[in-house]
């Protein structure tokens, strides 16, 4: 397995495309996270809140995105992870997770990360600071 240290500034990690968002994904995340806000699981509640349908927890997408880095946890760890939620994720959306190396300072690798939907719209973006041991 290649290490992150071989990556050049401007290069990206291999993208991950998720399966279409399903209701069971969100029910599972609600249970695992304890976030039972009904706009994520119950159609009527989402509609009452003015949404066209249930939407994914922002933290579900943020949690998914971290797996771009999981293969490298023997080399280092995520020291900082910051995200701005830019758009909603609906049922059946196909989300792609991306990370590009922006800067290297000593043993710290700064990545720009984003998640985009099937229309190319950004649903979240932010930064990961990976601290290499």
């Amino acid at each position, binding site marked *: 397995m290649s290490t992150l240290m071989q990556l050049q500034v401007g290069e990206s990690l291999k993208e991950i495309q998720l399966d279409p968002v399903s209701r069971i994904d969100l029910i599972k995340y609600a249970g695992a996270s304890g976030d039972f*806000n009904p706009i994520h699981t119950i159609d009527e509640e989402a509609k009452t809140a003015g949404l066209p349908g249930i939407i994914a927890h922002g933290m579900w997408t943020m949690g998914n995105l971290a797996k771009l880095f*999981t293969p490298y*946890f023997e080399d280092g760890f995520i020291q900082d992870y910051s*995200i701005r939620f830019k758009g909603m994720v609906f049922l059946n959306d196909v989300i792609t997770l991306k990370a590009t190396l922006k800067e290297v300072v000593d043993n710290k690798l700064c990545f720009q990360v984003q998640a985009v939907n099937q229309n190319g719209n950004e649903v979240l973006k932010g930064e990961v600071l990976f601290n290499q041991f």
Partner: protein
Amino acid sequence: MFNETVGKRSNKVKNVVERGAVKKFAEAIGDLHPIYFDEEVGRNSRYQNNIAPPTFPRTFDYGVIEGLNLPNKGLIHGEQTFHYKRPLVVGEELLCYSEVKKYFEKKGNFGDMGFLVLESFGEDAAGNVIFSSTSTVVISEAVRKVLTK
């Protein structure tokens, strides 16, 4: 209405990085790396144990901030950060608490939007902060009207 809560802090609550909870969480975010739940892989790793995914602290109990009454509905999660000294290790205990960091309002497309920034912490038994996180919660004008009633 949230201005008077700025600086207020919750009581510290003991949380355990539970093995089963970590596994369920890893499954829920589709991150099936064995470092999270295979005991042998954990033992042989540099952490000598399994670790938790970086967004796992979302599952912790941070106690109650007196006077802060956030509704269950109508809140938008705007931003989220995590800062780590090291990854969380399965089985460890952390004392967790939150503080209202700031509150401000801005004019937006949907009227005056309120922005509440909560900072949360997890300390080990010796009082070292192992992780901190901030959540920015966006509160619409409509929701705030309901709250002041």
